[in-house]
């Protein structure tokens, strides 16, 4: 297998889908500009032509409706927005039309569209460039929502989304684009609605998705050395959500920590904890834990984001506390030779 980045994996999925099916089209603001949506759409127009790959007016709502209309006549549009926040203008078309079309017409039509939305973080993205609103979307029956964390899933889930007959929201975290991983070549698909266990363990279930899974991977390594064995479940899909895998893990470990890239209230993590409490109440040794964002907008200042986001250290501390062990953040020294507000040296902003 070859290692490529998460962003390259997305690019490969586009290439594969558009090569396989001439009805797949791709559009989004800046899709064919020199930067190609963080590299994810580079080369598409050159290969597939400007009829199938095109830049668009700054009209998020209408362009969502356009995707819906085109999909009713056999086209499979893949639309992309550089920030999820921009897409809020399109909630009408998404919620009132795309999500309902199959149901409200008694299954007469369906809407095979894929919408990529990118969640920002760091370098002062602030209140309107870093919202992680997956919970809004999972609340709407009729949508599918995926949030891959690793490169292979980025490719496999994008291909599955494009060839799914329903509207799929594909959420990618900006801090994942440069992360490398083994990615199968060719028409590689990951089923929507199936979680993946990234590390098996017996002491605690860590349920995670998207970028928080990367933080969790660092944390479980440290916890392992401290003698705590974690079952790390990467959900990959949030709607439909693989409840079976979640419950099975909790039945095994009897402890639960849920990680969330969004605000705590009314979140995916809230739903997971609610259902685990309802389904596995008698099995739990301890009350479930959660690490999510505070119920505030994202601040912009370098000094404030430090206290806003939580990561691997916080996971280690919370889990150890659950096992009656206190540890100070300073002692952990998870090595980072770059500032807290970037995912690595590669990221120099501005977005």
């Amino acid at each position: 297998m070859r290692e490529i980045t998460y962003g390259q994996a997305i690019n490969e999925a586009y290439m594969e889908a558009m090569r396989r099916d001439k009805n797949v089209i791709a559009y989004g603001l800046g899709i064919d500009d020199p930067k190609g949506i963080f590299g994810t759409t580079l080369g598409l127009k050159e290969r597939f032509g400007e009829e199938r790959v095109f830049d668009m007016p700054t009209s998020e709502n209408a362009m969502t409706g356009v995707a819906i209309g085109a999909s009713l006549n056999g086209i499979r549009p893949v639309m992309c927005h550089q920030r999820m926040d921009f897409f809020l203008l399109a909630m009408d078309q998404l919620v009132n039309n795309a999500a309902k079309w199959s149901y409200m017409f008694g299954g007469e039509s369906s809407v095979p569209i894929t919408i990529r939305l990118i969640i920002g973080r760091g370098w002062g993205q602030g209140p309107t460039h870093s919202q992680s609103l997956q919970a809004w979307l999972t609340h709407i029956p009729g949508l599918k929502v995926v949030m891959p964390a690793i490169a292979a899933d980025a490719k496999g889930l994008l291909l599955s989304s494009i060839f799914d007959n329903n509207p799929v929201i594909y959420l990618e975290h900006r801090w994942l684009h440069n992360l490398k991983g083994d990615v199968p070549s060719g028409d590689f698909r990951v089923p929507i609605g199936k979680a993946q266990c990234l590390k098996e363990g017996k002491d605690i279930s860590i349920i995670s998705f998207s970028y928080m899974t990367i933080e969790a991977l660092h944390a479980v390594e440290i916890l392992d050395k401290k003698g705590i064995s974690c079952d790390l479940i990467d959900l990959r899909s949030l709607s439909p959500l693989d409840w079976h895998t979640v419950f099975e893990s909790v039945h095994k470990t009897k402890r639960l920590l849920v990680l969330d890239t969004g605000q705590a209230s009314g979140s995916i993590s809230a739903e997971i904890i609610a259902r685990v409490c309802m389904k596995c109440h008698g099995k739990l040794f301890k009350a479930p834990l959660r690490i999510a964002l505070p119920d505030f907008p994202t601040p912009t200042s370098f000094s404030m984001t430090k206290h806003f986001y939580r990561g691997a250290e916080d996971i280690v501390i919370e889990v150890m506390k659950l096992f009656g062990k206190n540890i100070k953040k300073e002692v952990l020294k998870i090595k980072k030779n770059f500032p807290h507000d970037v995912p690595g040296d590669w990221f120099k902003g501005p977005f």
Partner: protein
Amino acid sequence: MVFMDNFIKRNKKIALELFYKMSKIRFTEEKIAEKYSEEKMRCPTHLYTGQEAIAAAVCTLLKRSDFVISTHRSHGHYLAKGGDLNKMIAEIYGKVTGCSKGKGGSMHLIDRRVNFMGSTAIVAGTIPVAVGLGLSIKLHKTNQVSCVFFGDGAVEEGVFYESINFAILKKLPVLFICENNRYSVYSPLKVRQPEGRNIYEMVKAMGCATDFGDGNDALGVYEKVKPAIESIRKGNGPFFFEFATYRWREHCGPNYDNDIGYRSEKEFDFWKKKDPLRLLEEKLLRSSVVKRKDIETIDENISQEVEAAFEFAEKSPFPEKDDVFKHLYNECAQ
């Protein structure tokens, strides 16, 4: 008038088709109004009575393969495009035999058989969908037309401008039909749009080919839209029409509501005198190629069709409990 008489003489079949469609819409809508108080049609229902000429003329010009998509007030468009009457009435009755299997009601009609692609209840919500259908036509290179009906209220939504802009930008084969019936629920045009600014002129300023006409004159609408559709098929891009018309009954529901005070009796009478169906009937009879007997035969046949549709709806079963949980997704494998 001479011109119109000649039109009827030259196009008797088309003139009768227009009359048939308009009369069918009128009979259906008035039957719904008559029976609504029985409380068996338990969904919001927006009647098209008074506006029939527009749907009939535009849809008569369209081919079966052309797409039509519409709004909350869509019975007329659905029927004019050839949508199944039985399935529409059954849908309004919430029956499993309805065109949307009881999940949509009056505001969510569909008949894929005749490419009536759907109607929805959010103002302006289907305008970009029509543009997307236009994009698909361009990609498939099939020479179809995508037609969308909407009202004057839709012009106040942001998505309207976004959609028109994209249709012009890509020269998409879209026919925009704005039925200006002067009211958005109870709000008159003058509190919503500046006086003296015409919708079709505003859209023209955006770069779209546009025209305006009397929406109660079926033959006039037909004659105006015909060359526009030809132009669209030639690849000249979208065309926008504004047609003046008037809904007779309340915004939503079976009643007349002139007594509540948002519009005057005088205004209502003015438009009632311009009844599109009677105007066409007079022209047909005056042309001498159509006899009163022809009209009566058409009306009689329609009356029977409509009666049969209500009987079909009433006799049809309701959906089962399990049906509530079907059709959330299309799970056909790809």
